[in-house]
C-alpha cells in the first residue's frame, strides 16, 4: 500500500540539469520523499557527504556511532513510520558493518535502502585501501543490490531501489557507488520506477482461492487464526479486525504480528511459538482449520513440523510465492496482498461466534495465569521480575507506547506482557535475533513517530553491544526511554544451559559496569532501581520526562521465561515450568 507521500512524490520529475553523481544521490533521495537518513562518513563516500552539507535544510543526516547503529535506526524508523529507512556508509569496514542490519531487515521484511561508497572504478579488484566486495558480501541478505560505476546510472538505479525495497514483500536493497561515479557530472532527470519487467511484487487477487477459503472457514467448527507482520506491512489492520470479528475466530500473533490487533480485543488470544501462550500453542494441534495471515511458519512458531497442526486444514494468506508450502504444506494458498484478499473474503464469511471453542482458550489461559503469569506479574519473592517492570510501564504509558526490544528473555517477557492499543507499536528483531538491535532501533522508531512514547526494553547483554548509540541519542536529544533489565547474565542462554546443559553456565555471567554512570557520562537523566517499592515511582518519572531517560532495573538473576517449547519439540509439548 502506498502512503500519501509516496503517491505525492510519484510525480516528481526534475528537469534535466548537469550535476555531479553525489548531488544526484541527494536529489534522488529527495524525489523519493526521504527527509531523514542515518549514516557514518568515510573516504569513499565523502563526495555525497559534501552534498549532504549543502542540502542539510532538506535532508537530515543522523550521525550514529557505528554503521550497525545506522541500519538498526533505519529499521526502527521504517517499522514505525511505514516509510523506507535509509542508511549510508563508506566502503570497506563501513560497508561490512551494515551487514547485520541488512540481514535483519531481510529476514524481518523491513524496507531499507543502504548506500555505500566504493573505491574508484579503476581500482576495483586491486585490493585498494578500504575496498571490499560489498556486492558479493551482501547478495545473500539483500532483496536486490547494484554497483554503480557511472554517474548517469544513479537516477534509474535509485528509483528502482526504492521501488523494490517498498513493493511486494518489502526488504533491504544496497547500492554501492564508486567514488568516480560520485564525482562525475551528467544530465540529471528523475523518473519514479513503476515496474521492473522481471519482478512481480504482488500477485493479482485470486478470487477462486478466496472462495475456497471462505468455504473452509464457514464449515469449520474449531478454526484458529495465526497472523504475522504481513497484516501490518499490507496496512490491512482494519480488514483483519473486521474478518476476525465477523467470523468470531480466536486469533493469535507471531512476535512480528504483535500490535496489529489491540491486546484487549476479546478475540486476541495471545502469542504462538516458543515462548508464546499456553492455549494458542496447545490448540494449534486441536483446531480443525488453521488460517495463517501474513506469516511464514518460522521454526520458532511451529516447533517440530512433523507434528504441527497435522489434524487441521490450512489456509495461507501470503504475498510471497516462495513462502507457500516452504515449511508447511497448505490446503488453500491465497497468494496476493492480504488487504485485498481479506476485503474479498469478508463478505463471503458467515457471521458466527465460536463460544465453546473460545472457552478452551480461556480455560488454558487460567492455567497459564496460575502457573506462570501470576508469578511473573505479581511475585511473592523478594527479587524483582521482568514482568512487573512491564506492568509498571503499561500503567504509566496507559498501554499505548511503542515498545522496542532487543533479543532474549526480556524480549519474550516484554512482548508477552506489554499492552498495545494500535498497530506499528512493536519493534523487535524477530527472525535474525540480533542482540544490539534495540538501542539504535529505538532512536529510529522515535524519529519515525515523534509524537508517540517510545520505550526500549533491553537486556544487559544486548545493551552493551550497541551502547555507543547513547551518544547519538544525546546529540539528537531524541526522547527515547531506555529500560535495561539487568540480571547480570545472558539470560536466555543461561536458561538453556540450566534446562538442557545441566546448569553449566559457560560464559553467560556478566560483570557489568555502572550503567547509570555511563548514561550520566552521556549527560542523560538516569537512575537505578533494585527494590520493588521504588519501581513505580522511577517508571513514572521516566515516562513523565520529555527528554531521553535511562532506567536500570536490577531483576532476579536466574528467573526463567515460561511457557516454553524446547527446540525441536512439538507445540503440544509446551512446558509451563
Amino acid at each position, binding site marked *: 500500500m502506498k502512503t500519501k507521500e509516496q503517491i505525492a512524490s510519484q510525480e516528481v520529475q526534475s528537469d534535466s540539469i548537469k550535476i555531479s553523481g553525489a548531488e544526484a544521490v541527494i536529489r534522488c533521495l529527495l524525489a523519493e520523499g526521504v527527509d531523514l537518513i542515518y549514516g557514518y562518513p568515510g573516504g569513499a563516500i565523502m563526495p555525497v557527504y559534501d552534498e549532504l552539507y549543502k542540502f542539510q535544510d532538506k535532508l537530515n543526516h543522523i550521525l550514529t556511532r557505528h554503521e550497525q547503529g545506522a541500519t538498526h535506526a533505519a529499521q526502527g524508523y521504517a517499522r514505525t513510520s511505514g516509510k523506507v529507512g535509509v542508511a549510508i556508509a563508506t566502503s570497506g569496514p563501513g560497508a561490512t558493518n551494515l551487514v547485520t542490519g541488512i540481514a535483519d531487515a531481510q529476514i524481518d521484511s523491513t524496507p531499507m535502502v543502504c548506500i555505500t561508497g566504493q573505491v574508484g572504478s579503476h581500482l576495483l579488484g586491486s585490493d585498494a585501501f578500504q575496498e571490499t566486495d560489498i556486492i*558479493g558480501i551482501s*547478495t*545473500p541478505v539483500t532483496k536486490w543490490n547494484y*554497483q554503480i560505476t557511472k554517474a548517469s546510472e544513479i537516477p534509474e538505479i535509485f528509483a528502482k531501489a526504492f521501488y*523494490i525495497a517498498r513493493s511486494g514483500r518489502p526488504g533491504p536493497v544496497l547500492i554501492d557507488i564508486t567514488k568516480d561515479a560520485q564525482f562525475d557530472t551528467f544530465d540529471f532527470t528523475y523518473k519514479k520506477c513503476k515496474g521492473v*519487467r522481471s519482478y512481480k511484487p504482488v500477485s493479482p487477487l485470486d478470487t477462486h482461492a478466496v472462495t475456497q477459503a471462505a468455504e473452509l472457514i464457514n464449515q469449520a467448527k474449531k478454526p484458529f487464526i495465526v497472523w504475522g507482520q504481513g497484516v501490518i506491512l499490507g496496512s490491512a489492520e482494519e480488514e483483519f479486525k473486521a474478518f476476525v470479528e465477523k467470523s468470531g475466530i480466536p486469533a493469535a500473533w507471531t512476535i512480528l504480528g504483535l500490535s496489529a490487533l489491540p491486546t484487549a480485543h476479546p478475540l486476541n488470544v495471545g502469542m504462538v511459538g516458543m515462548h508464546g501462550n499456553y492455549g494458542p500453542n496447545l490448540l494449534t494441534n486441536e483446531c480443525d482449520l488453521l488460517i495463517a495471515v501474513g506469516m511464514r511458519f518460522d521454526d520458532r512458531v511451529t516447533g517440530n513440523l512433523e507434528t504441527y497442526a497435522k489434524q487441521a486444514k490450512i489456509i495461507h494468506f501470503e504475498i510471497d510465492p*516462495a513462502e507457500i508450502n*516452504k515449511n508447511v504444506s497448505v490446503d488453500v494458498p491465497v497468494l496476493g496482498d492480504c488487504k485485498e484478499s481479506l476485503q474479498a473474503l469478508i463478505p463471503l464469511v458467515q457471521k458466527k461466534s465460536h463460544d465453546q471453542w473460545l472457552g478452551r482458550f480461556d480455560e488454558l489461559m487460567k492455567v497459564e495465569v496460575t502457573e506462570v503469569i501470576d508469578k511473573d506479574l505479581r511475585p511473592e519473592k523478594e527479587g524483582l521480575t521482568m514482568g512487573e517492570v512491564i506492568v509498571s510501564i503499561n500503567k504509566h504509558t496507559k498501554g499505548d507506547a511503542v515498545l522496542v526490544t532487543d533479543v532474549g528473555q526480556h524480549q519474550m517477557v516484554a512482548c508477552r506482557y506489554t499492552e498495545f492499543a494500535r498497530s506499528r507499536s512493536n519493534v523487535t528483531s524477530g527472525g535474525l535475533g540480533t542482540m544490539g538491535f534495540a538501542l539504535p532501533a529505538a532512536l529510529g522508531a522515535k524519529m519515525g513517530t515523534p509524537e508517540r512514547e517510545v520505550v526500549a526494553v533491553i537486556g544487559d547483554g544486548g545493551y552493551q553491544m550497541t551502547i555507543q548509540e547513547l551518544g547519538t541519542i544525546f546529540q539528537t536529544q531524541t526522547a527515547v526511554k531506555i529500560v535495561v533489565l539487568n540480571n547480570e547474565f545472558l539470560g536466555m542462554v543461561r536458561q538453556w544451559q540450566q534446562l538442557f546443559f545441566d546448569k553449566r553456565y559457560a560464559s553467560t555471567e556478566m560483570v557489568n559496569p555502572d550503567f547509570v554512570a555511563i548514561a550520566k557520562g552521556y549527560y542523560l537523566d538516569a537512575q537505578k532501581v533494585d527494590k520493588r517499592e521504588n519501581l513505580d515511582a522511577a517508571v513514572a518519572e521516566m515516562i513523565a520526562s520529555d527528554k531521553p531517560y535511562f532506567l536500570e532495573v536490577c531483576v532476579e538473576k536466574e528467573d526463567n521465561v515460561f511457557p516454553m517449547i524446547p527446540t525441536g519439540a512439538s507445540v503440544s509439548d509446551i512446558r509451563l515450568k
Partner: protein
Amino acid sequence: MDKIFTISIYSENNVGLLNRISAIFLKRHINIESLTTSQSEIKDVFRFIITVKVSEDKVKKLIQQIEKQVEVIRAFYHTDEETIFQESALYKVKSSALFEERHIQNIIKESHANIVTVSPEYFVIEKTGFRQETDRLYQDLAPFGLLQFVRSGRISVSKAKMGISEIIKNFKTDN
C-alpha cells in the same frame, strides 16, 4: 528420492545475478552438477541451465527461491524425459596415435565424433551427445593417452512451451 532435474532460468543479463543464483544453492548445501549460461531466444534475455540431483520437493522450493529474485523473469524445472538435452566434450590426443593406431580411427567413426583440428603434435576430437556417449568415448580414448579432456555443462530445451515472450509482452502493455 533424489534424481537429476534440469533447471531453466530466464533472466535479465546483469552482473552479479550468477552469484545471487548460486547463493541459493550454497545456502541449502546443494551441489550444482552443471551450469551453462547463454543468450536466450529473446534479445537481452539471458538463460541459465543448471542440473542438480535432488528430490522433487526440493527442486520445487529451489524454483520458488530463484523466481523470488528480482532479476529472474521465470524459472522452470524438468525431468530428463521432458527435455531435449546434450553435452559437448573435447578430447586432445597425441597425433602419433592417429597415424600409428588404426583402431583410433574406427573409434572416432563409430562414435560419430568430429575431428576439429589436427596438428603435427596433437589432434582434437569433439563429441556432442548424452553423458554416457561422451563417457564411452572417454574410456575408449583413454588407453591412447588423453592430453586434455573437458566436458561442457548440459544444454537443454524443453519439450513444452516456456512462454517468456508473453510475459515480456504483458509487462510492456501493463506499464
